[in-house]
């Protein structure tokens, strides 16, 4: 069955990583970029070839390579699989990945550690592809942890910056918390079903009755969702993603917008069968998604760092995807993954282009009026803008519409909250656009347009953002995997959500184009609330105060200094002191005086004689 050589898809970037990682230091930059880009393009080409060869993919195509772990009942193979869900993800990952690799050639050209950057990026591709192609939970987990590692490496790419190191560590550790849930879910699955293969597990789950009372399936589903929440930055584990913007911008685009962060959504969709058996878990997923969407959107309204705005936007959009999963519209969730990958990658890359043009400036307050100075960048960013704002008929409109409809079908209040969030989304993206491109220039640098290697990929993404939603009918394609919920298209609902987007844009135009003094007035009026939102609800501070600091202080003060050094070692050394005292007493006997020894020997003789007497009956 291994006729498609699926292994080549992840193996090519891995080869790129090995070559660049080991020898890249001695290569000229051009060679490094050729190797890196070629490996990802090759992978993309192989995906296209494979999908062409596999045809309509009604059933998953599985290839088994070797047994990875075999121990008693635990049997885990290195199996790769392609079904329609994977196919969608593969195309997104390799396609967008290729574009971003090309873009990075331009973006990173002046940076130190060029080869290192591309090696990490290729490694990321390898793990991401493993993640989407793995045919069992453990292989998924390998990719899962692997992308976390690459995220760590790339966030901390600017090793001299302390904030980058902190952000990288935070990302990894928070992800680890999520992985903790994921791994526990995996162990439970193994215990319950005796296998981690998707096929076997899902076959075993399908006939089970839907779990109305909380039970083992709910536990598994919730634990899986903890993992997903960690990777996909959901409340309460979203805190790492905004900080992750410390990494180079192509990384933000590829990992923290388009691909890695959607792995949680992919995993939820992959384990849809399990989730569907637990209404409670589904409710939790939807609710968490909703809270995340609203919370992140409100924070996004107030930020000034262009990448932070987009980062909170990403968190918010991920919340949308989980709403979709939670209400049972998994295909809508994946649809949004795809369109979001287009426009959010574009937003980040465009932002990168702006930052590049301004030699590293990220603060919106120091931009303005750039539309004329960097017109190409402005043009492509405008495409992303309309796409994310949900303006029909562009990409975001279709997927957001699907989600909102499904939410309405599930619970109307979710729909309304979603609509408000959509309005906020439109508002803050417009705000960023207006502050950046309109008005007068407020910065000091001399903006210059990006080279072709950078805007070329942007153009492709722009086209995708505009037409992708209409052209790729993802939910239809995914029907064999996720039967589409019977939904009646209520036209009014669509109009309302579009209206929300338009109102959001209009408000932004009012506040930042027509009456520039208005935002300050409003924020002044809101006072404490504005402060709360501007400081991201003080979530980081709360985490520091309640978890991080007590843990470190407790470990240092109580466990180490008092318990380890004090009590345990105290007991040990106390024993030594007792032994020494007793020994000191006994030492007096060892006077070194031979005659005292002789006296003892005599005494010994008496004792022996006594014993002899008693034993022989001599002494009665």
């Amino acid at each position, binding site marked *: 069955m291994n006729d498609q050589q699926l292994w080549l898809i992840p193996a090519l970037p891995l080869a790129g990583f090995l070559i660049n990682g080991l020898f890249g230091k001695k290569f000229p930059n051009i060679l490094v970029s050729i190797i890196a880009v070629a490996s990802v393009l090759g992978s993309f080409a192989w995906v296209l070839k494979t999908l062409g060869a596999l045809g309509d993919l009604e059933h998953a195509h599985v290839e088994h390579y070797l047994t990875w772990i075999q121990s008693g009942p635990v049997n885990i193979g290195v199996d790769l699989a392609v079904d329609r869900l994977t196919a969608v993800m593969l195309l997104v990952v390799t396609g967008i990945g290729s574009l971003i690799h090309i873009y990075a050639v331009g973006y990173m050209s002046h940076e130190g550690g060029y080869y290192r950057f591309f090696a990490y990026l290729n490694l990321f591709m390898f793990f991401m592809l493993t993640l989407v192609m793995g045919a069992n939970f453990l292989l998924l987990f390998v990719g899962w942890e692997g992308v976390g590692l690459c995220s760590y490496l790339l966030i901390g790419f600017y090793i001299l910056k302390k904030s980058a190191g902190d952000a990288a560590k935070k990302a990894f550790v928070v992800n680890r918390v999520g992985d903790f849930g994921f791994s526990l879910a995996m162990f439970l699955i193994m215990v319950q079903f005796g296998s981690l293969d998707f096929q076997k597990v899902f076959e075993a789950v399908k006939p089970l009755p839907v779990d109305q009372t909380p039970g083992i399936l709910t536990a598994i589903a919730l634990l899986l969702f903890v993992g997903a929440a960690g990777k996909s930055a959901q409340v309460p584990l979203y805190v790492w993603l905004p900080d992750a913007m410390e990494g180079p911008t192509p990384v933000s685009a590829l990992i923290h917008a388009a691909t890695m962060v959607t792995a949680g959504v992919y995993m939820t969709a992959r384990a849809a069968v399990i989730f569907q058996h637990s209404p409670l878990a589904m409710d939790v997923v939807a609710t968490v998604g909703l809270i995340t969407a609203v919370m992140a959107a409100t924070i996004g309204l107030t930020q000034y760092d262009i990448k932070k705005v987009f980062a909170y936007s990403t968190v918010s959009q991920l919340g949308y995807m989980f709403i979709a999963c939670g209400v049972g519209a998994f295909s809508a969730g994946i649809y949004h993954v795809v369109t979001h990958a287009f426009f959010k990658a574009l937003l980040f890359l465009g932002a990168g282009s702006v930052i590049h043009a301004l030699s590293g400036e990220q603060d919106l307050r120091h931009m303005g009026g750039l539309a004329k100075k960097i017109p190409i960048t402005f043009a492509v960013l405008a495409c992303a803008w309309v796409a994310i704002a949900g303006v029909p008929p562009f990409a975001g409109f279709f997927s957001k519409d699907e989600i909102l409809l499904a939410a309405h079908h599930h619970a109307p209040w979710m729909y309304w909250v979603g609509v408000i969030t959509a309005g906020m989304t439109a508002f803050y993206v417009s705000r960023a656009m207006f502050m950046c491109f309109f008005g007068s220039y407020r910065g000091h640098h001399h903006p210059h347009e990006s080279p072709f290697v950078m805007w070329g990929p942007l153009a492709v993404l722009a086209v995708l953002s505009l037409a992708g939603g209409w052209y790729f009918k993802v939910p239809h394609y995914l029907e064999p995997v996720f039967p589409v919920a019977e939904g009646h298209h209520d036209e009014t609902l669509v109009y309302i959500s579009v209206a929300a987007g338009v109102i959001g844009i209009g408000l932004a135009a009012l506040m930042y184009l027509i009456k520039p003094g208005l935002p300050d007035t409003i924020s002044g009026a809101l006072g404490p609330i504005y402060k709360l939102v501007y400081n991201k609800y003080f979530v980081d501070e709360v985490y520091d105060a309640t978890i991080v600091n007590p843990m470190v202080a407790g470990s240092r003060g109580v466990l180490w200094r008092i318990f380890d050094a004090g009590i345990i070692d105290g007991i040990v050394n106390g024993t030594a002191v007792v032994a020494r005292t007793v020994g000191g007493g006994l030492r007096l006997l060892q*006077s*070194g*005086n*031979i*005659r005292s020894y*002789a*006296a003892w020997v*005599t005494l010994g003789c008496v004792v022996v004689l006594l014993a002899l007497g008693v034993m022989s009956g001599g002494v009665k």
Partner: protein
Amino acid sequence: MPTTVPLTWYLILSAILFGLGVAGFLFRRNIITVFMSIELMLNAVNLSFISFSYKWRQVDGHIFSFFVMVVAAAEAAVGLAIILTVFKNRSTLAIDEVNSLKN
């Protein structure tokens, strides 16, 4: 008065002599006297050997005390040589003062 004594008297004599030897070893300071006390103990033991030899009508006891004698001779030779050396180095015969191994 009986013309003979029981064998046990010999053994008790041997014990008394041995005890005297121990006493000399314990309470005397002069290294030569200590050494002679040891010889006394050896003699006491020899007496025991020969008494038992008489009891069992076996000559082996004699052989044993013969060997003891040989060893005693060898010991005396080496021991006295050591005493000579110690005296040469330290000009004392009091064993309590020969304590450089202590501490």
